[in-house]
């Protein structure tokens, strides 16, 4: 039975249980809901939860565990002598699984019947022929033990899934019955539902956290793998970035310094654009603008944050780059060779970051108590004196937090760099030269056709890890600043 149908059946049981639990509780109280501990729907939800939660957990656990179990049983059927030269048991098992799927599909297509697929003494050549004719992928020659293993795999899986369906339905029905039995006026169904809600929220939070941990672990393992192939000293302190894709291996120079420098340089240019403009527009919006102007201008500014970065990249490539070239290029000051440069990417990235800085700073400036401003006005200070000497110092920790958040955005930005800054990794101080960043190189290292186990591809994980550590440090620093000074004016 497909899992989808199974899930629907469990839901149907839960729905029936809901109705039954609700009406049982009501009738036990003589039809008067005031005689119940909880509202009638809570009794319904209690039953539904008890039907659904264990059943779905069982389903999930079964789906995860069964393949492991069946595989380990079946893999025992393949004698060591059958494992081919240069192959391994796990590769053989992949073959067996492919054959089993092939048999399934062949039956579905009608080239063989079920009995034939189950026949352990079937003619191997015939089986192979039929599999091929139904368009199934058969990579290597099927041997008799492999065929038998595949057949066994099919039988075991099918049996497992039928047992699973029965078990899940029994669990759902048992849960529902348990809940219905409980549906008496004194039962505290409301508290049970409250617990259920709490568990749901905990589950959601843990999924988010566990995923992060998983991503982090995969980064760490691959980074360790990379450092096994490539010396860490050369990676962290190398000043050359010259990966070789020839496949000879060993000839690549993978120094991270030029990339880090490019990242840093472009981010600095971007922040030099975004921080003053963003901060000043935040001050204007929160302190000077009339409510009418503010209600129009703030959403307009926030639209900037909604533009996909690839569009900013196009803007850099097609508008800002040529514009800069016309001023600083060969026809002008002759500082710039082509449109792709640190300046191009930095300017455009700065524009992208304006709404981050302005929107966060605006909220923070608004959170400074009016009493501070009144106190300053009451002493005869002008508006700009008040802002400079009272409001901004009071809001400073939050503003620093906003700037650091913008900085970690800038460091992680990819698309604008790819299109605006070029792809040449170099250590240079000239902002009109093409450079590249860590993120842009991660893309190019992983989209090439290098062997995935080579240092040229694995370096992407080391780069990602470096970037992650830097942005994490920035975020922690931002949080620290914000926490340390947050209560100052409260």
């Amino acid at each position: 039975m497909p899992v989808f149908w199974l899930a629907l059946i469990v839901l149907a049981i839960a729905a029936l249980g809901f109705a039954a639990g609700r009406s049982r509780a009501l009738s036990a109280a003589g039809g008067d809901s005031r005689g119940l501990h909880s509202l009638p729907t809570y009794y319904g939800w209690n039953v539904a939860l008890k039907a659904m939660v264990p059943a779905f957990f069982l389903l999930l656990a079964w789906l995860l565990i069964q393949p492991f179990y069946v595989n380990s049983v079946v893999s025992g059927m393949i004698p060591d002598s059958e494992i081919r030269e240069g192959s391994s048991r796990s590769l053989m098992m992949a073959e067996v699984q492919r054959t089993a799927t092939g048999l399934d599909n062949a039956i579905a297509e009608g080239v063989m019947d079920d009995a034939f697929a189950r026949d352990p003494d079937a003619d191997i050549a015939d089986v192979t022929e039929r599999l091929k004719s139904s368009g199934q992928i058969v990579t290597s020659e099927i041997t008799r033990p492999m065929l038998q293993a595949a057949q066994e795999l099919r039988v075991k899986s099918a049996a497992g899934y039928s047992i699973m369906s029965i078990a899940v339905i029994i669990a759902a029905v048992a849960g529902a019955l348990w809940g219905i039995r409980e549906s008496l006026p004194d039962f505290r169904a409301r508290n049970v539902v409250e617990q259920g809600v709490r568990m749901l929220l905990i589950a959601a939070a843990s999924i988010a956290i566990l995923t992060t941990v998983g991503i982090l672990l995969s980064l760490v393992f691959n980074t360790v793998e990379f450092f096994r192939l490539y010396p860490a000293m050369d990676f962290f302190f190398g000043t050359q970035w010259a990966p070789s894709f020839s496949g000879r291996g060993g000839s690549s120079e993978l120094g991270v310094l030029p990339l880090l420098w490019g990242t840093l340089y472009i981010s600095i240019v971007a922040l030099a654009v975004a921080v003053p403009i963003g901060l000043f527009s935040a001050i204007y919006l929160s302190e000077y603008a009339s409510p009418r102007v503010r209600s129009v201008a703030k959403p307009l500014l926030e639209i900037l944050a909604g533009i996909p970065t690839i569009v900013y990249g196009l803007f850099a490539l097609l508008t800002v780059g040529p514009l800069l070239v016309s001023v600083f290029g060969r026809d002008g000051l002759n500082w710039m060779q082509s449109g792709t440069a640190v300046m191009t990417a930095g300017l455009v990235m700065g524009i992208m970051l304006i709404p981050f800085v302005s929107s966060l700073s605006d909220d923070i400036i608004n959170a400074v108590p009016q009493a501070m401003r009144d106190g300053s006005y009451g002493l005869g200070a002008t508006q700009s004196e008040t802002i400079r000497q009272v409001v901004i110092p009071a809001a400073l920790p939050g503003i620093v937090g906003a700037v650091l958040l913008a900085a970690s955005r800038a460091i992680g930005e990819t698309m604008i760099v790819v299109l605006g800054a070029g792809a040449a990794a170099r250590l240079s101080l000239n902002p009109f030269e093409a450079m590249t960043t860590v993120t842009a190189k991660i893309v190019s290292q992983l989209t090439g056709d290098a062997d995935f186990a080579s240092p040229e591809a694995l370096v992407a994980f080391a780069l990602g890890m470096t970037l992650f550590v830097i942005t994490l440090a920035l975020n922690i620093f931002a949080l620290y600043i914000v926490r340390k000074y947050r209560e100052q004016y409260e």
Partner: protein
Amino acid sequence: MDDLRLTERDVTSQDAKIAAKNVQVYYGDTHAIKDVSVEIKDKTVTAFIGPSGCGKSTFLRCLNRMNDTIDICRVEGDIRIDGEDIYDKRIDPVQLRAKVGMVFQKPNPFPKSIYDNIAYGPRIHGLAKNKADLDVIVEKSLRRGAIWDEVKDRLNAPGTGLSGGQQQRLCIARAIATEPEVLLMDEPCSALDPIATAQVEELIDELRENYSVVIVTHSMQQAARVSQKTAFFHLGNLVEYGETGQIFTNPSDPRTESYITGRIG
């Protein structure tokens, strides 16, 4: 009020510092202050009393044009300080506020050091020629604010770290530091405990020597204790204005009597 001392309290000065005539204040469509005329004497503590929402704070804020910072607020009428119309176009409200200091209901020290809190006004208005001069102003203001002894050893500590009563005295010292002529106080003791209140009240009495003080208060005992003149506001009208002793012992308006005996408010 059974304190007969009140009637005997003398008013040290008869010069009018602030003269308000026919003042009307509107918040949007709400008519908050209706035709209030009052003369506030120099070197006197004048108390504004009345139930919540009667307009006493609003009127107080007219005196240093703090209502300008509220968009929907509109002030009509004639308010003169030393004979000068403060709503005249030529008057800079910023300069006016340096002359008419204000202390707020909730202590609002800036998130700066105690020293910088006091030095804020003098720095803005350029009252000190050099650092030594500023030090003198800071010490003098803190002494007049009756808080010098408590903070002299920690002038660089943040002003927000003081207790509520200390913060309020710091704010009074901060207002004094700009050498105002009039000091407006909007319920300065409502966030303080009785001991801190007593300290601030004592301070207000001392300030009378140099300034004209206008204090808004909800506590009638406080008005009776610290003020020489009392104005009773009700529903945006100035009901009665006169000697504090007379207002509390022998009010001429029945509404004043009802309020001070606790029947309305």
